[in-house]
C-alpha cells in the first residue's frame, strides 16, 4: 500500500511557554506540507493569531481572509490564523491547519489555512485564509510565532506532515 501522508515532527510547548515553534531542516522530498496546530498564546485577550514564517523571512507575506466572530462574517487581509489568547476559558486552545503545496518548488508560495478559537461564550473568532509568500525560495524551515502575544502557552502543540504525490 502506498503511503502519502507522513508524520515529520511534533513540537509540544513545555512549562514556561515558548516564543516560537520551529520546524528546521525540512526534508525536500515531499510534494506538499501540512501543519496541524493546537495553540494558545499569553496575549491578554480571548483571541490571538499565529503567524507562519518561512526560512526566517519576515516580509513579503500577504493574504485574504474570511472572518467570523459568532455574530457576523467579514473579510480582511490578515496573514495570521486565529488561535486562543490567554483570556479565553482556561484549558482551551485554538485548532487550526495550514496546507502548503509545492513547498520545495521555485515559484512563489501560496497556502490555505483555517483557524478557530473557542471559549465558553457566544463571541469567538475563526478565519479561513489564502496567503502568499512572494518569494520563490524552497521552504526549508517554518517558524510559528504569536502575532500579538510573546509566548505560546504550555501544552500548545504543532505537528508537521509531508504529503507525497507518489512513492
Amino acid at each position, binding site marked *: 500500500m502506498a503511503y502519502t501522508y507522513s508524520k515529520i515532527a*511534533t513540537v509540544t510547548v513545555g512549562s514556561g511557554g515558548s516564543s516560537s515553534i520551529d520546524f528546521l531542516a525540512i526534508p525536500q522530498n515531499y510534494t506538499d506540507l501540512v501543519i496541524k496546530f*493546537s495553540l494558545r498564546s499569553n496575549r491578554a485577550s480571548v483571541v490571538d493569531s499565529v503567524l507562519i514564517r518561512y526560512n526566517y523571512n519576515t516580509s513579503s507575506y500577504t493574504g485574504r481572509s474570511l472572518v467570523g466572530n459568532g455574530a457576523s462574517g467579514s473579510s480582511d487581509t490578515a496573514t495570521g490564523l486565529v488561535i486562543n489568547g490567554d483570556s479565553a*476559558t482556561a*484549558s482551551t486552545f485554538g*485548532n487550526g491547519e495550514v496546507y502548503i503545496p509545492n513547498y520545495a518548488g521555485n515559484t512563489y508560495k501560496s497556502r490555505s489555512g*483555517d483557524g*478557530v478559537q473557542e471559549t465558553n461564550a457566544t463571541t469567538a473568532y475563526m478565519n479561513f485564509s489564502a496567503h502568499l509568500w512572494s518569494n520563490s525560495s524552497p521552504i526549508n524551515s517554518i517558524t510559528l510565532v504569536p502575532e500579538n502575544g510573546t509566548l505560546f502557552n504550555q501544552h500548545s502543540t504543532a505537528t508537521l506532515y509531508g504529503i507525497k504525490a507518489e512513492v
Partner: protein
Amino acid sequence: MASISLKYKSKQGNLTAPGDVDPGAMIPIATVTASGSATYIDFTSIPSNYEHLQIRAIARSTVAATEVGLLSSINGDNGSNYSWHHIYGNGASASASAGSTYTYMNYGANIAGANATANNYGIFIIDILDYSNTSKYKTFRGLGGTDNNGSGWVQLGSGLWQSTSVVNQIRLATGGGNFTSSSSFALYGIKKAGA
C-alpha cells in the same frame, strides 16, 4: 549489505511482511454507513494512541428541509458543556452564529435534507486535535456544506467540549429527522510524529 527501500520493494511486489509497509500517518479506525434510518452515529472505544482524529463524512437527513445542522456530543456527556461557532456563506453573503452552554455542538448546515435534490448528500470534515491530551479542553474544527444546485451553504465551524477527558466516544446526529441510508462516516487517527 545495502538496505532495500520500501518504495523499491513495493514496485517489485516482493514485500515480505506487514511490517515492511509504512501505512503513513493517517490510519482508518472505523467506517459507519447508515442502514435504514439512523437517529445517530456513534464511534465508540476510540483508541487513545493517536495524536489527532479526523472525521470525513457525507450525510443526508429525513427532515423536510433542504439542509439541516450537524450535531455532536462526546463521551456520552449530555451536560451543558458545549459551545459552538460557525461562519457560513450561501453564495451571496456571509453570516455567523454561535451558542454557549449547550448540551451539544452544532457545526451548521452540513447535512442535506429530504427536500434537497435526490441523491444529494452534504459533506463535512472535522478535526479533533490533541484528543487524548488531559491538560486541554477539546476544540473541534469542521469544514463542510451542502450544495443543492441553485442553493446551499458552506461553513467553517468550531466546537468546544469543556472537559479534559480523553475523547473515547463521538456521537453525530442531525438537527432534525434521521440519517438516511448511504450516509457514510469515517473516523481516522492521525499518528504522532515518530510513532
